[in-house]
């Protein structure tokens, strides 16, 4: 994830009409915002459209960019709002609060080579992540994958910082427990095979 200072710099450059900076902002944040939008909309094309709309607004209102304190959070919230507007336009009722949308995408990526763990254990971990309650999973994704701070996740999902903190602890606990169980199961069984 692009660091905050770089975003600040790009923000100033875009205000000065720098299309190069605009492109850098877009390409560094696109995949995160796209996955976020796709989670909310459960479809690829409208998600891409929503992110594109958000960035069009950034360009159109670039002279006011200095008024935005945290541009990254602004982009997530705009993506969320745009996605909601899109759903409303589609005359679909939006009844669930945002964090309840299941993060049902294979967007959490692990490299088994980097992790030095068995494929079996990786499967266990993936399963544990997939079984996380939606809010929990969304928070896990936004903090791990998108590198967002508690405060930022709280703003984006309309939750308290305390809730974000607790939910992430729950997520880690559940994944950690899966790892724990895995040791207890696999060590005795490999023991048996070696005899």
């Amino acid at each position, binding site marked *: 994830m692009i660091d905050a200072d770089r975003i600040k710099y790009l923000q100033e450059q875009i205000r000065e009409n*720098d299309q190069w900076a605009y492109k850098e902002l877009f390409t560094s944040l696109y995949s995160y915002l796209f996955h976020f939008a796709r989670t909310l909309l459960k479809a690829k094309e409208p998600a891409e459209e929503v992110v594109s709309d958000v960035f069009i607004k950034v360009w159109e209102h670039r002279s006011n960019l200095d008024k935005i304190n945290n541009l990254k959070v602004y982009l997530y919230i705009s993506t969320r709002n745009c996605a909601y507007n899109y759903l409303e336009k589609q005359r679909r009722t939006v009844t669930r609060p945002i964090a309840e949308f299941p993060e049902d995408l294979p967007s959490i990526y692990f490299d088994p080579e980097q992790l030095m763990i068995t494929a079996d254990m990786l499967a266990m971990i993936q399963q544990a992540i997939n079984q996380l309650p939606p809010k929990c999973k969304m928070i896990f994704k936004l*903090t791990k994958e998108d590198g967002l701070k508690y405060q930022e996740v709280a703003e984006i999902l309309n939750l308290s910082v305390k809730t974000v903190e607790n939910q*992430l602890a729950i997520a*880690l606990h559940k*994944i950690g427990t899966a*790892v724990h169980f895995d040791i207890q199961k696999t060590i005795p069984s490999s023991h048996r095979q070696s005899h």
Partner: protein
Amino acid sequence: MGKDEKEYTWNLLAKKLTGEASPEELQELAALLRRNPELHYPMQTLIDLWHSGEPSRQAAAESAFDRHLDRMEKLNTGFTTGVPSATSDHPSALDYVPARRSRSFRTILTVSLITITLTSTWLLLYPGHNRQPLSPNPLLASTAPALNEVVTVNGSRTHLTLPDGTKVWLNAGSRLTYDKNYGSVRREINLTGEAFFDVANNPQQPFIIHTPRMDVRVLGTSFNVKSYAADKTTEATLVRGSIAVSIKNRPDETIILKPNQKLIVTSDLTTLLRHQPGQSRTVSDSTAQISIRPPSYEQNTGAMIETSWVNNKFIFKDEDFGSLSKDLERWYGISIRLTDPAQADWRFTGNFEKENIQQALDALKLTANFNYIIQGNQIQIITNK
């Protein structure tokens, strides 16, 4: 370990991973792990997991950006039709309306285009340059015997054909030089000012234009180069074909321009002079900002502004008077003196063809509150109080 303590340990681990933990909390976590060794393995696995990288999605983001640009163009955001000023608080500015790019015009564009505006002169920037610096005076120029030189003064334009058949249109106040070996062993020219090129095809010998700030290598078809000493920016615009631009002092960075892209390098003279070769810097380093934009089009006719001078038209769009006055000086062969720094920020859009300088200034007066005094070749701009 109690349930509460366990929850608390995971909470601390979460804080550690997200960078939210205080030094005290990190110590506390370490103490808890010492007391509960069974947590070591799952927690270490989670730490590894957390930092496990994801594959780069750069290529996907780049192609998404291309589709995004297409949408912006359709929605007429002004992004793809030239960049209007973001600050519209110039009281005398003409209303900027983003031009719709006419399809018919797009299809009749048959040339590649490069516009280069230079930051400073050869001599000042590169005192140790191995080429003999040239004087506009032909007598002085003859001290560099290996060079051919073509010069236009302000207010005049010319065209010529180079030994290999390449056609060149040279705009006002420009100088083009090439050596006696041009066409036999290499095709390299030096340019200050502005020129339009129709390059004879020869894949064995790339056509290279040297300017103080950048080198442009032509990979195919025809194009236009503009290169003036007085301007703050260096620009390269390509309409069709392919060109590679390398910025001076940055041998590792070659920028390949695609059609409908314009490269602008902004840097001020002092930082340019201070810059040491080999010093590492990013493309968007603040001392030399590089941006890529589309070229501009005239609203009514769809004519590309950057090449309009070849057809004896003087077109400008949302241009600040600071740079417009320099264009007027070159076009009419006069000199303009601004008497108030604020005048440089006035912005104009317009189109001159047969007008003389007086008619041109009278037209500009309609949208900005000024008067002018002509004394011989000198024109003073005076803001009306």
